[in-house]
């Protein structure tokens, strides 16, 4: 099937390019318009060929039942609430797709292996329920950290491979499977947010979508062990195991960098909100014995930058994918607590 269709697409590509060349020769279009349309033509033929070639494989593996599944683009509704409902449907559909779930499981297994954790995929459901009373603090902390590391690995997978493509007027949502399998992680903010939420949801994480003016980002609900900076080795202590934190997982955000004298610590929003960053900072403090006043001020100044970013993101409407609840979250509050400890 796909070979015949690919031949047909190739014919179309040639006919269009020939027509464009004719129009250029007749002086009906300029060189600039010619180049723009040749590019569009190549892009469309590439997308269609990939859809049919990859689609055939996906149909054979019973990941999708027809090619039409890959072309199910949805028109963007006007209101945020309706747009969220459409995104929610696409995320749920994406998270139930075996291809997306397999990718999430593969990344989780690789991360666990690298961290020397025997459980390949954390039982994420446990994050959102009561821990058995006989579980010791250290096991709970290890489990929370395992969930955090897998979540970060999924985020890093998308962040490091994504190619941001703005497609104005951007009237359609593309299905997560199309973003992953056909466009190879090309998309705009909402396409990437939906893919990331689908990956998270496929292995049990609770996710949300943050909607700002002109921007959409994915987010994840995690448990965060309270971190004590005065602790000599900077390790986490379990003061409030049920401190949930809404972590914005925006693949379009760059990492932050804090320079402290000769040392430089690079960290992302994920590290900050999961407490991982403060743990690292604690270990560095322990190693360096003390920060100079200048270094302390520098760190504080950088922290303020993070807070500002979080405050901006907190202005967003947040829609929780599983419950469908609309809320606003104070993303920066948990970090302000940490800052006061520093």
């Amino acid at each position: 099937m796909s070979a015949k269709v690919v031949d047909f697409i190739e014919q179309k590509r040639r006919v269009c390019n020939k027509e464009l060349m004719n129009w250029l020769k007749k002086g009906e279009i300029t060189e600039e318009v010619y180049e723009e349309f040749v590019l569009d033509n190549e892009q469309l033929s590439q997308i269609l060929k990939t859809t049919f070639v990859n689609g055939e494989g996906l149909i054979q593996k019973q990941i999708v039942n027809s090619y039409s599944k890959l072309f199910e683009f949805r028109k963007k509704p006007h209101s945020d609430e309706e747009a969220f409902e459409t995104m929610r449907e696409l995320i749920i559909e994406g998270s139930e797709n075996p291809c997306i779930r397999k990718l999430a499981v593969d990344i989780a297994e690789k991360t666990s292996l690298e961290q020397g954790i025997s459980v390949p995929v954390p039982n994420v459901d446990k994050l959102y329920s009561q821990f058995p009373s006989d579980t010791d603090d250290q096991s709970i902390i290890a489990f929370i950290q395992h969930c955090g590391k897998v979540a970060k690995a999924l985020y890093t997978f998308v962040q490091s491979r994504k190619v941001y493509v703005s497609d104005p007027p951007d009237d359609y949502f593309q299905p997560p499977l199309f973003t992953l399998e056909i466009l190879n992680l090309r998309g705009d903010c909402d396409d990437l947010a939906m893919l990331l939420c689908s990956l998270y949801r496929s292995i049990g994480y609770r996710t949300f979508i943050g909607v700002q003016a002109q921007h959409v980002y994915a987010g994840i609900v995690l448990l965060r062990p309270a971190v004590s900076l005065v602790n000599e080795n900077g390790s986490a202590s379990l003061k409030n195991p049920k401190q949930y934190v809404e972590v914005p997982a925006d693949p379009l955000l760059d990492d932050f960098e804090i320079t402290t004298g000769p040392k430089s610590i690079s960290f992302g929003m994920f590290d900050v909100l999961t407490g991982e960053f403060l743990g690292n900072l604690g270990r560095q403090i322990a190693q360096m014995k003390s920060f100079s006043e200048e270094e302390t001020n520098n760190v504080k100044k950088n922290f303020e930058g993070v807070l500002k970013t979080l405050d901006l993101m907190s202005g967003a409407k947040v829609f929780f994918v599983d419950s469908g609840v609309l809320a606003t979250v104070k993303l920066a509050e948990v970090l302000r607590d940490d800052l006061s400890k520093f």
Partner: protein
Amino acid sequence: MRKEKCQQIKTHVFENVAPLHQGKVSLNDVHRMFSHLGSRSEIEKCLNELVDDNMAQKVEMNQGTFYVFSEIALKYGQKWKDELQSLKEHMKNLDGEISSLEKKLEVNEKMMNIWLEGWKEALQDTNTYSCLNNYVSSVFFGQRIEVILNRLREKTKELREINMRAKEAERKIAASYNTP
């Protein structure tokens, strides 16, 4: 009318009223402004002194008596001529942009039609055909067409506005310079 009052009226007309009316001042208007200083004939006599001093020309028109300050009128006439010239250039550029956008729209539609032809035979599955048709026409080309149409609407609106400004400039040239 006392000499000082006449001087006061002449100075005010020359420095303020004439520039405000692009060099063409109606006797009726000046009378309305300075009726507290003298009668219509006294004010006319006072303004006639500007004509005697070669600073203005007195012109009788259907609408009444006018005093034309050539230097000021010429200055404003030139200003509106320059403005009209620049608006015409802008209109020419906009015309070019609009026809280029219209051409792009035409090419987009032709390409879309080429891409949409003949799939029924190649695919056979009607559901896939309908989804592909929607992708090619609405998502891929449709969004591009929408962008071009939006730009076309903006440019056409801009051209309409510039056209109105050009007409206004032509009217001002006619009123302030050519037909005193």
